């Protein structure tokens, strides 16, 4: 199955470049819709196919170890598989939602072109085997997202996108600086080879400078608190399916996944990096939720909660790194990292669902302000049911998936000895619950204002999209014990395993060559 890996990047690229041709040459809207849906289904099938297998590496152009050189590779280990499934699942749901939602904007062909470029970039980030291709795919996905945020071309969207663009390109510049320093120190760009040389470089000050640049650059992409200023403007201004993609997968693929890959598989977890990650995670959790409490714009509130939930994931990864660096119990580190990665998957599911619900609400009523909404439970049953499920998931209510991942993170924090971090996580979970009770009361409960008397349920394709994600939320929650056991679905287990056992990445990526 290794031969199918380039298709995860080549297929969305091909579809993306075909869309402007279709748009310019003739205008059948159904052809563009059909092509987009088929492409998304194909991508999801390809990524689900990678689940049951051993980790693989694909050398592009045949420049692999048997030709004597180390070329560009695509690596698919456990963590990659988790990212691929998450990205392509949210892609399919967002495509289904945009089929009708984007009728209100112009040029759906160009929208899908940029959308599939973003998907190609994210898939490439998940699979990149060397640092420079990681940077290039980050840029491809990021530049497409800058244009997509500004897609409506209203003044607010342009302003938000400009701010996002400037900060995002500065972050990418920092990432490239880090890549350049690592290349200077080690003479190679292949991530596994760099890991092989790390033991000789311990204590080199240039290494800490590179790590600092990576934290600044990728921390901005992941919206960690000192670097979060672009997110509350950019995510609400984008069209709803793009907000779902941005909050649901872009900040994870470009931010958290790249951080995990670099700090676990390339640089190796040390105590200083772990402390930095835990500090960033804790600040983001607290900052995000406190800033969200006073928000009355539905999408802006959701955007602040994205910051907070990403703080959970980075905190969990930091706890795992700290335990690994101090030589502690591998089981505890594995549990923390498992909790973080499970929370990343869950957040993709429920945050995307929340943004899609807010998009459906806006499609039906025309407003995003909580004070103007109310009583939609009777008129829009599917939307309000899905919104209720997603709010309960993000608040961490028992049978849904958010509860399990937050519980695992808190238990792992206590077992690792960071009791006050566990208390902070519980406090933030409580504040999240407060925020979403407010959302529930204002959007779904309460009375229907007169001007919204005529709202109807949104079209079928948008409903299908929302119901799919709701099923994933419920399923991941109910089936959680199966996901945790080694002979269950197991792909989360493989993911956390791939991160914890540091040398496994080198074995996979070089396929037996000595580093």
């Amino acid at each position: 199955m290794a031969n199918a890996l380039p298709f995860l990047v080549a297929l969305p690229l091909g579809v993306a470049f075909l869309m402007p041709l279709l748009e310019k040459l003739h205008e059948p809207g159904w052809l563009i819709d059909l092509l987009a849906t088929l492409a998304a289904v194909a991508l999801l099938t390809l990524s689900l196919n990678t689940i049951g297998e051993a980790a693989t590496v694909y050398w592009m152009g045949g420049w692999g170890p048997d030709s004597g050189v180390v070329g560009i590779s695509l690596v698919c280990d456990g963590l990659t598989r988790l990212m691929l499934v998450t990205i392509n699942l949210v892609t399919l749901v967002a495509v289904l939602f945009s089929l009708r939602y984007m009728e209100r904007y112009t040029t759906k062909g160009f929208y899908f072109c940029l959308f599939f470029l973003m998907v190609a970039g994210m898939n490439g980030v998940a699979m990149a085997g060397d640092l420079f291709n990681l940077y290039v795919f980050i840029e491809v996905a990021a530049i497409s997202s800058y244009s997509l945020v500004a897609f409506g071309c209203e003044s607010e969207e342009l302003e938000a996108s400009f701010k996002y663009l400037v900060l995002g390109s500065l972050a990418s510049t920092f990432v490239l600086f880090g890549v350049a320093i690592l290349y200077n120190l080690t003479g190679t760009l292949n991530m596994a080879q760099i890991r092989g040389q790390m033991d000789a470089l311990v204590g080199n000050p240039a290494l800490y400078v590179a790590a600092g640049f990576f934290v600044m650059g990728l921390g901005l992409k992941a919206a960690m608190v000192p670097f979060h200023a672009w997110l509350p403007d950019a995510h609400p201004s984008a069209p709803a399916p793009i907000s779902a993609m941005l909050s649901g997968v872009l900040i994870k693929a470009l931010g958290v996944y790249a951080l995990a890959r670099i700090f676990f598989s390339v640089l190796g977890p040390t105590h200083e990096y772990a402390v930095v990650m835990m500090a960033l995670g804790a600040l983001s959790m607290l900052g995000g939720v406190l800033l969200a409490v006073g928000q009355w714009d539905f999408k802006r509130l959701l955007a602040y909660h994205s910051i907070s939930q990403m703080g959970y994931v980075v905190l969990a990864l930091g706890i795992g790194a700290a335990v690994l660096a101090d030589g502690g119990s591998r089981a505890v580190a594995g549990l923390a990292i498992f909790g973080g990665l499970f929370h990343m998957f869950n957040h993709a599911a429920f945050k995307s669902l929340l943004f899609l619900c807010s998009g459906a609400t806006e499609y039906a009523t025309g407003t995003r302000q909580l004070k103007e909404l109310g009583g939609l439970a009777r008129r829009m049953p599917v939307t309000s049911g899905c919104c209720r499920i997603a709010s309960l998931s993000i608040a961490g209510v028992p049978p849904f998936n958010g509860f399990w991942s937050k519980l695992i993170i808190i238990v792992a924090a206590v077992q690792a000895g960071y009791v006050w971090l566990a208390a902070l996580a519980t406090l933030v979970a409580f504040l999240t619950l407060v925020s979403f009770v407010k959302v529930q009361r204002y959007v779904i409960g309460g009375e229907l204002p007169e001007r919204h008397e005529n709202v109807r349920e949104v079209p079928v394709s948008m409903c299908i999209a929302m119901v799919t994600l709701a099923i994933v939320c419920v399923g991941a929650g109910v089936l959680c014990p199966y996901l945790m056991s080694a002979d269950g679905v197991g792909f989360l287990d493989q993911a956390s395993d791939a991160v914890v056992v540091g040398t496994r990445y080198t074995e996979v990526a070089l396929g037996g060559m000595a580093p």
Partner: protein
Amino acid sequence: MRGMTVIVRTVTALVSAFALLYGIQLVLYGHTSPGGGFAGGVVLACCLILMVLAFGKDFVADVIGVRTLSVCSSVGALLFLSVGLLGYAARRPFLSNFLAAVAKSHGGTILVCDVAIALMVAASLSGVFMAFSAFRPED
């Protein structure tokens, strides 16, 4: 956008043929000397921009057409992608140089990729310039 004076138009008419030729040379010799797809594409785009500045926006819109530019950029990208995918047909990995044996000293697939990239870059950059010039109020 109006064009420029007679002097500029005459000189541009004489120079642009050579400039276009230079751009094409950068593309075709890109695998053995400095240049390549991107640099050649930028020079070709600059030629088109020079012609628009000298002769006015309507010149390019009549001769080439904005729709052609958009189609060319997509075609260039799809050509590059198909070169990568044709490697599968030859039972070699993605993006491998399956034409290396065909013409020994001519770079194989690198030449085809260079031409595709140049087409795409030239079309995209001149398209960007056309889009910018569309915002100007008519003088």
